[in-house]
């Protein structure tokens, strides 16, 4: 019931953002569509935490702000390497241990790694992520530890000590 309500609210916001019409006919159409979608989701039995990723908004938002600062820093490093005349790069493959078994935390962590320029998560395994780094100094496991802790915290999953 709680998930159905959250899904309905999210879809209402999306509808109002994208349509921009506030005449009764369109609003009624919107309400009917949302009701049908929620009913179908409930019937399929997929109204769970994965379909409706309800995260605490302030936590997620503050994580994204931190991540954006990291992205800017990493961008500077990559841009310096790419634009330097002799293009000194040192590609590295490194295994980063995972600190949680929850799918959503793993996804958040792997996506954050890929989003940061200079590091791409290549392969997901049950207990580690294979990460390809453009520069050797980007592949230190300590740097990933903080990102892992913060991303688990952002989606409200308790990270275990690694």
């Amino acid at each position: 019931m709680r998930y159905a309500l959250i899904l309905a609210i999210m879809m209402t916001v999306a509808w109002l953002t994208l349509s921009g019409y506030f005449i009764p006919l369109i609003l009624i159409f919107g309400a009917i569509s949302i009701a049908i979608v929620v009913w179908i989701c409930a019937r399929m039995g997929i109204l769970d935490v994965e379909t409706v990723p309800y995260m605490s908004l302030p936590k997620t938002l503050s994580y994204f702000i931190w991540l954006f600062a990291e992205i800017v820093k990493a961008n500077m490093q990559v841009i310096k390497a790419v634009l330097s005349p002799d293009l000194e790069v040192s590609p590295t493959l490194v295994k980063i241990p995972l600190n949680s078994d929850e799918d959503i935390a793993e996804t958040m962590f792997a996506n954050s790694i890929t989003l940061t320029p200079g590091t791409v998560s290549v392969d997901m395994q049950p207990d580690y992520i294979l990460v390809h780094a453009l520069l050797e100094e980007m592949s230190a496991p300590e740097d990933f530890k903080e990102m892992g802790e913060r991303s688990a915290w952002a989606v409200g999953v308790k990270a275990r000590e690694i």
Partner: protein
Amino acid sequence: MMMSLILAAASSADQGASLNIDWIGLFRTILSCASMLTGIFFVMAGTLGVLRLPDFYTRLHAAGMTDTLGAELVILGLIIQSGFTQMSLKLLLVAFFLLLTSPTATHAIANAAYKAKLNPKLGKYTAPSVDGDGS
């Protein structure tokens, strides 16, 4: 972009002979131009990286640079230009989905290459010198 800057200044100058320039509008235009130009710089640097880097995996990094900071800064510029309108909300949504989908696509490509046993070049790499005996 220079055109719109001049137009903004001109339209505000028309209003009176006492030269009351629309400072906020001018500031907003300059800010959005600066943001978009920085974004375009990142996109160009990323393209250059795709051309210069040695192998598939390293090129992915350069491509990732264009769709994080490059695209986001261009969208930020557009948001500043359109102000508090419905268009800004839509642009915010575009920026958000870009932030979610681009790493997923990059991971899918990298994983496909890894599964197909494409071995990454590891270790130090330096660009071949131009004025060597390059054959």
